[in-house]
């Protein structure tokens, strides 16, 4: 049986599919019995979800203009 501490330590290994078959089974067995670790895993997944949707900054207008100039020069070439 693995402990909660181990579950927390290897969560990313689990999510990345890097556990061996036996480790994976032990991990999932633990989750089946431990609501805290299930909650932990769902928090980690929610965190990853937030990170994946963070919008990037918009290009500043002067950068946009500069790139457009470049595009126009390229167009003529």
């Amino acid at each position, binding site marked *: 049986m693995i402990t*909660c501490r181990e579950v927390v330590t290897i969560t990313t290994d689990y999510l990345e599919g890097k556990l061996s078959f036996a480790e994976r089974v032990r991990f999932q067995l633990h989750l089946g019995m431990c609501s805290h670790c299930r909650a932990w895993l769902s*928090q980690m997944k929610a965190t990853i979800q937030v990170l994946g949707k963070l919008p990037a900054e918009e290009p500043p207008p002067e950068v946009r203009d500069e790139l*457009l100039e470049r595009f126009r020069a390229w167009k003529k070439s």
Partner: protein
Amino acid sequence: MRQSDPVPAETPDAELIARLRARDETAFLELVNRLHGPLTRLARSIAGDAGAEEIVQDTWAAALTGLDTFEGKSSLKTWLFAIVLNRAKSRRERDQRQVPLSSLGPQDDEEGGVDPSWFTENGHWNHPVERWSDDTPDRVLNDKELRKRLLAALEQLPDRLRTVLVMRDIEGLDSAEVCNVLGVSETNQRVLLHRARTRMRALLEEETQDETRRRP
């Protein structure tokens, strides 16, 4: 999900490429609006502020040069990301940066991003862990102030954690790409990713607890 800009439907790549080849300026502007931010964020995570600008400028130049021969086997995003990664990698190798690559390995005092004080002696949680409500991600993403704090926390991460986290979880690259650019092993990459994720989780945890406290 974006707050500021109502997201216009994205033009499919094939159409955008055709219009770009026809020298259509609006197509180019759309591409710039779509990708300049992510390209800059990616470049900054690897090369810092100073390097990023040059890398992204070079990337746009290379994009224009290569456009007529781009085969479209990958998406425009993947193509431009690959150019950024290439340049960032050579730049990194050229500068050796202030951070020697050896220090990219895990070496924090924390054990794998885990706080020992969370657990009892026999490794069980010593406090209850609760699921966040299902709308937590949306709530965080739609809250401008909260997003700002999240980005600030990201900036506070040690360089190597931030680099890996941005590449993997924010820009969605795979581990092989990260290992290649940074010259770290797959295992190190994963340890860094785990630490960075657990730190961001802790931040969100604080924020969601505050939120719960504010709620009646």
